[in-house]
């Protein structure tokens, strides 16, 4: 039938139009318009980082070329490469992405599909910055020696195409792995381990800094040959060899980059071809054998002394949710990591300063908890409807949630205390009292405001997912203000205590403030039911949003 043979160009234009309409339609809501403002601000920042980084790298390249130090040119190439490939993974890998393979329901040819997937979302922040910085390198080298301009352009062009291809390949494979909840959780754990590695990197480097310089250089010397045969090293090699007049070697290096690019595209092709042939993105979700147990007895729910069955039920539900959440495990191990990090830098801590490891760690524990406290219905998703039609007031539900959060915080602080005691020495009683008084002041304030924001500005989150999951912009802003206030008050109390050599007076001051904050907490808690009922439309709509 005539008219049923669309060209690739027409299909790409239609897909472009679709993306444009999605963007325009998103502006109908206030949230969409706020996101546009955020994007505009981010755009200005990216432009600044791109121009600034480009100029800085240009200056570095100019200096290296002028000083005949082109053997160091691999360093900026490696930095660009690592940023280009790691940043998108960190920023997007743990979110649930739109399944672009849904385009396959349309009569798209395979080359068309490959092309669309290659360019679909390719111009992200990392690509924009990476390209700006690469242009900076070309400009710097060309400014120092114009005869090198073609070689710099060749090296950078090959490097840019390689990075684009590799980034798309990584993205498509990660998208495949993340299509199942279980692999998302595995990635989450890997992310957690990576975070721990970053935290521990400082102490470990500090520990090995006592190595003699020749030893360190020996390790680097062993790594150099490996670095030279990888794309960033090869890109630097193109220019370096061109300077030395080894033009055929320079061309060979460029060809090797093209070879790596072909490899990345081939792996990308493997995944896309499988999708094109009918394997859906969610095929990664393999049916698992069901653990069949006949007549398994149902365990009774928890019973907390002095508390109602409903509060006990919500408390149990919250702790079960937390225990199955990667980020929550992260929250619990954080104090231990904190102690370890501080242990790495213990040589810098002098006498009295060691006493403040415990209060600093406790403040950090509370800070980590605010992620949950300020959006406490976020993980419930559609389940919030159950709270709304159950005969339990939101005041009770919120109190039970706060109780669960308080339990975790208390557990965190106990672990911290134990860690500090083992690694340093037991914190003096006056420091423990000061810390507890500050926690009694800061925690109810955070809970009170967190409860209000949880109802006023909820946002659906998944505890199993890491990454770009945040509370709403309003929540982040208010939370920041509250943290600055409570930390400021704590710091003031500490300063006054040290200034007048009476830590107990500072503790008394914080304890007095704690009375006010606890009163404020209960006053606000009493209003939560009324507010939640008034806001029930927002709660169900926002938390139901996929």
């Amino acid at each position, binding site marked *: 039938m005539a008219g049923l043979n669309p060209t690739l160009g027409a299909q790409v234009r239609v897909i472009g139009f679709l993306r444009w309409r999605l963007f325009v339609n998103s502006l109908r809501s206030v949230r969409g318009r706020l996101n546009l403002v955020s994007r505009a601000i981010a755009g200005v920042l990216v432009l600044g980082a791109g121009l600034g980084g480009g100029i800085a790298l240009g200056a570095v390249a100019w200096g290296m070329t002028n000083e005949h130090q082109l053997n160091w040119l691999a360093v900026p190439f490696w930095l660009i490469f690592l940023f280009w490939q790691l940043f998108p993974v960190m920023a997007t890998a743990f979110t649930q992405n739109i399944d672009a393979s849904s385009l396959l329901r349309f009569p798209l040819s395979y080359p068309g599909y490959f092309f669309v997937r290659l360019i679909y979302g390719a111009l992200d922040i990392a690509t924009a910055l990476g390209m700006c910085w690469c242009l900076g390198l070309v400009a710097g080298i060309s400014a120092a020696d114009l005869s090198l301009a073609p070689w710099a352009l060749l090296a950078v062009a090959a490097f840019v195409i390689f990075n684009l291809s590799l980034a798309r390949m990584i993205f498509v494979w990660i998208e495949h792995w993340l299509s199942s909840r279980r692999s998302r959780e595995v990635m989450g754990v890997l992310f957690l381990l990576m975070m721990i590695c970053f935290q521990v990197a400082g102490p470990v480097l500090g520990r090995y800094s006592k190595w003699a310089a020749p030893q360190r250089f020996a390790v680097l010397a062993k790594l150099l040959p490996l670095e030279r045969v990888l794309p960033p090293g090869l890109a630097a090699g193109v220019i370096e060899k061109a300077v030395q007049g080894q033009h055929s070697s320079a061309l060979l290096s460029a060809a090797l980059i093209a070879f790596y690019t072909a490899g990345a595209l081939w792996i990308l092709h493997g995944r896309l071809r499988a999708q094109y042939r009918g394997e859906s993105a969610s095929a990664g979700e393999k049916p698992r054998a*069901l653990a069949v147990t006949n007549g398994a007895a149902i365990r009774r729910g928890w*019973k907390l002394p002095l508390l109602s069955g409903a509060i006990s039920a919500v408390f149990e539900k919250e702790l079960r*949710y937390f225990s*199955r959440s990667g980020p929550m495990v992260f929250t619990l191990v954080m104090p231990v990591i904190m102690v370890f990090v501080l242990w790495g830098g213990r040589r810098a801590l002098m006498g009295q300063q060691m006493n403040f490891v415990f209060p600093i760690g406790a403040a950090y524990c509370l800070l980590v908890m605010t992620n949950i406290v300020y959006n406490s219905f976020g993980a419930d998703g559609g389940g919030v409807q159950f709270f709304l039609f159950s005969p339990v007031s939101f005041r009770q539900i919120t109190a039970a949630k706060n109780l669960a959060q308080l339990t975790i915080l208390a557990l965190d602080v106990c672990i911290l205390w134990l860690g500090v005691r083992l690694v340093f020495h037991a914190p003096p009683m006056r420091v423990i009292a000061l810390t507890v008084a500050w926690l009694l002041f800061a925690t109810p304030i955070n809970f009170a405001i967190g409860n209000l924001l949880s109802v006023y500005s909820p946002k659906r989150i998944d505890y199993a997912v890491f990454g770009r999951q945040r509370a709403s912009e309003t929540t982040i802003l208010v939370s920041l203000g509250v943290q600055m206030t409570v930390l400021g008050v704590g710091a003031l109390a500490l300063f006054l205590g040290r200034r007048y050599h009476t830590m107990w007076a500072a503790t008394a001051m914080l304890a007095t403030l704690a009375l006010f904050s606890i009163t404020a907490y209960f006053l606000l808690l009493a209003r939560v039911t009324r507010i939640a009922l008034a806001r029930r439309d927002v709660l*169900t709509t926002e938390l139901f949003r996929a």
Partner: protein
Amino acid sequence: MDSPAILTEGLTRRFGDFTAVQDVNLSVAPGQFYGFLGPNGAGKSTTIKMLTGLMAPTAGRMQILGLDLATHLTEVKRQIGVVPEGMALFGRLTGSEYLNFAGRMYGLDRRTTAQRAAELLDFMELSQQPHTLITDYSHGMQKKLAMAAAVIHGPKVLFLDEPFEGVDAVASGTLKAMLQRMTARGVTIFLTSHVLEIVERLCTYVGIINNGRLVAQGSLDELRSGVVAGSATPAGEKMTLEEFFLHTVGGSRAATQELSWLG
């Protein structure tokens, strides 16, 4: 005569300029199996949300079991069970944990909750996967679990929003039998469904909502005979529920329209 189990007067809900439900007057007697029908976007889910306390009405009055929802919301909630549109499940609990949670939220003691949860899981054929998280359940299994949670406390009025959607034929038969036994014991069931055959087989009374207005309400026989206000069918002439529904909501246009280019 008993007071209605569900009664609404002038029930209205507006979203800005758009009126989703307008001046709806429902009356459902105790023990009735009431089917609430309407085309997509007619206002069925909005009505059920208001009746279950998930959404506040803009105007009008609602009574469940003689209790005004505006003043006795918690008392009403104790006596109703709900399977809402989104099922209201907590994905990262197991089925038994969720039922344990639900029972205790409705005030059952731990022993009774555990006992009923075990029975319900067995009845719904969900007991063979005690360690599977709800998020890993199939859609049909989630529907069955939501139904189990809605009845664990023995409600007097049950609100079901599309309860059979995605449920297999075997489970569907089990659920229908359970619901019929419940109405025989005096439980009132308020059900929305797009599947008219289900409504025709289960419900004794039907209400039809279109463009936010209740356009017909009565027993199945009354509707089929055309004696219900809003129906233009001559009395005495029996119709199927589908014919009556299409006639009432103006579906005949779509049936007679043709797309000439379709093979």
